[in-house]
């Protein structure tokens, strides 16, 4: 199995007709924020301020930014460790994210889980577990509930190429196909699962598995944020119209190691160079410059925002341990997930508002 994508990007309409200028700026901003936060966090990690390990999605920011941007407030997301932009789009603020990486009390999980293992339940996000792709089943279950209740909403989850080898991938794909559920599965094919290349992971191109489970599969250029957006928007429409699931194979490249402790020596230098030329942030910046947008101003604003976020996060206390035993069980009422932010202009007035409350 070659590490190049076997198919050209199919269904690769860039979605200009659905994206206003402000949306396209938003997409760049989200990617810049993600990249900037992760760079700062990596620096803090090297300063010993981020405990445990550190994972980032450098070079694949478009996969989460583009897909999350197509999600409505009432949709629900299971976000993975290289999808930080999705959290930002849903409304999680940078200081909270940096506090979370540093294990501070102000982090989204208050120190109970680390790095990108978080999900702000009030913004409709479910925090991931390490066993992958367990979250595919959770997303499938959420979609199942939406369909049972007749709601026009969908669930979306990301997962990596390696995780498709586990049973939960197949159980989720099968269940979603059998019940024809409104779920969007985004397969981030970033060429490597830790050090394991694709030819040790699949015997077929994974997008073909969608047909095997009875639904649509599409391969797209994961480094084009507007293509990602359009593919997800289409998949969402299919889902809420009762057309069932979609598997979107987003082809991209993991430009850093598996985690901060991995120097990725196993990746050929030429491959890295080739993908650097296809950097998603660079590509979106070029687009916006062609439209006379002041990209440098955006960069500067993002940098300032991250500086402020880091200052705020560093000033926050570590958790004290006084309540480390509390919260194992819910003692009150079970509150379902809440709605998240949805900055896409396509969700403004005129859009049907019959999403559910959970």
């Amino acid at each position, binding site marked *: 199995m070659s590490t190049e994508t076997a198919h050209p990007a199919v269904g690769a309409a860039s979605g200009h007709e659905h994206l206003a200028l402000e949306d396209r700026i938003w997409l760049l901003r989200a990617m810049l924020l993600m990249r900037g936060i992760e760079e700062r966090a990596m620096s803090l990690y090297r300063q010993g301020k981020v405990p445990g390990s550190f994972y980032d999605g450098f070079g694949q920011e478009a996969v989460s930014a583009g897909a999350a941007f197509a999600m409505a407030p009432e949709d629900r997301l299971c976000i993975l460790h290289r999808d930080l932009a999705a959290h930002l789009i849903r409304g999680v603020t940078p200081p909270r994210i940096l506090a979370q990486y540093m294990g501070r009390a102000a982090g989204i999980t208050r120190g109970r889980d680390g790095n990108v*293992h978080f999900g702000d*339940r009030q913004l409709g996000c*479910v*925090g991931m*577990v390490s066993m992958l792709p367990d*979250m595919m*089943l959770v997303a499938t279950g959420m979609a199942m509930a939406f369909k049972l209740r007749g709601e026009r909403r969908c669930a979306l989850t990301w997962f990596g190429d390696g995780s498709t080898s586990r049973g*939960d991938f197949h159980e989720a794909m*099968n269940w979603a196909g059998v019940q024809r559920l409104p779920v969007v599965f985004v397969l981030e094919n970033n060429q490597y699962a830790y050090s394991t290349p694709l030819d040790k992971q699949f015997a077929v191109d994974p997008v073909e598995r969608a047909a095997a489970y009875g639904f649509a599969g599409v391969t797209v250029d994961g480094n084009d944020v507007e293509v990602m957006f359009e593919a997800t928007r289409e998949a969402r429409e299919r889902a809420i119209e009762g057309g069932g699931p979609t598997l979107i194979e987003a082809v991209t490249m993991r430009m850093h190691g598996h985690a901060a402790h991995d120097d990725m020596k196993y990746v050929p230098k030429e491959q890295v160079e080739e993908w650097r030329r296809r950097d998603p942030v660079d590509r979106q910046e070029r687009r916006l410059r062609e439209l006379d947008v002041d990209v440098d101003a955006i960069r500067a604003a993002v940098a300032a925002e991250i500086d402020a976020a880091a200052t705020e996060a560093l000033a926050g206390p570590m958790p004290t341990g006084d309540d480390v035993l509390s919260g194992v069980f819910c003692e009150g009422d079970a509150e379902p997930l809440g709605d998240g932010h949805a900055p896409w202009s396509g969700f403004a007035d005129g859009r049907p508002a019959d999403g559910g409350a959970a």
Partner: protein
Amino acid sequence: MAVMTYLQAISSALRDELRADERVLLMGEDIGVFGGAFKVTDGFAAEFGTDRVMDTPLAESAIIGCAVGAAVVGMRPVCEMQFSDFISCGFDQLVNVAGKMHYRQDLAVPLVVRLPSGGGFSGGPFHSQNPEALFMHSPGIKVVAPSTAADAKGLLHAAIHDPNPVCFMEHKHLYRRVKGEVADGIYETPFTARVARAGSDMVVIAYGAMVDVALKATEDLEGASVEVLDLRSLVPLDEDAILDSVARCSKVVIVDEANMTCAAGAQVAALIAEHGFEDLDGPVVRVATPDVPIPFSPPLEQAVLPGIDRVREACRELLAY
């Protein structure tokens, strides 16, 4: 009030919940059209539809995982593992996704997993297990195990109303062999222990199918007054009731149908050794299935499961100690 079997009590609870709460959803293999491997949901599909009494694919991990998803968007799923043994296929979703979600993310997962457990009828190693200890050991999961029809209904209602993941250990041997008076309508049995018989010379601590074994084994022990404590709830464990019985009786026999090592009874024994030491007049004795897979052929199975005679002998010895 009506007299019904343990199985009918479970059906009654499910039926009442489906009628009362539109969020309740049953998920399991063969539970809809077929009415369930044990007929617990016989007739349900006709009344509630196959959407709410869902025939799932053969995929335990997916049953639990999808239930988690449904639960966090406002449903109240009640999953069934066709046999408790098969929970091993869904272990990851239950332990790592459902169990840890609230602690990490402050997100409640109100789901119930019904687990038809236990042996005694040549089910063999994969249809006879009592896996509750695995989930007692896993933070974030509650575990209950009724021994009477009334408790089966009450605990199941309480489990469905609970905002946390709850494992409901329903013992297959009790399905049609235990009958009792069960109140009408929806009621909750608290997650506490119950004194099945009060006594003063010794207490036998048990749960599930072993409660009846304990009662029968100690009915007529040369006039000794033997208390039987039905734990009913394993997580949370009713430590006060256990220590109270020990304080009054001073001699303890703990019966586990599950394999001895690290069974629920081991935790009870540790609790007593540490917090009931001053009240003990003898060693804390355990009667449990030894650490073997449950064998298939009747003489082998009877040799390993704790039967009335074995429990009685252990009690007699301890009384004389």
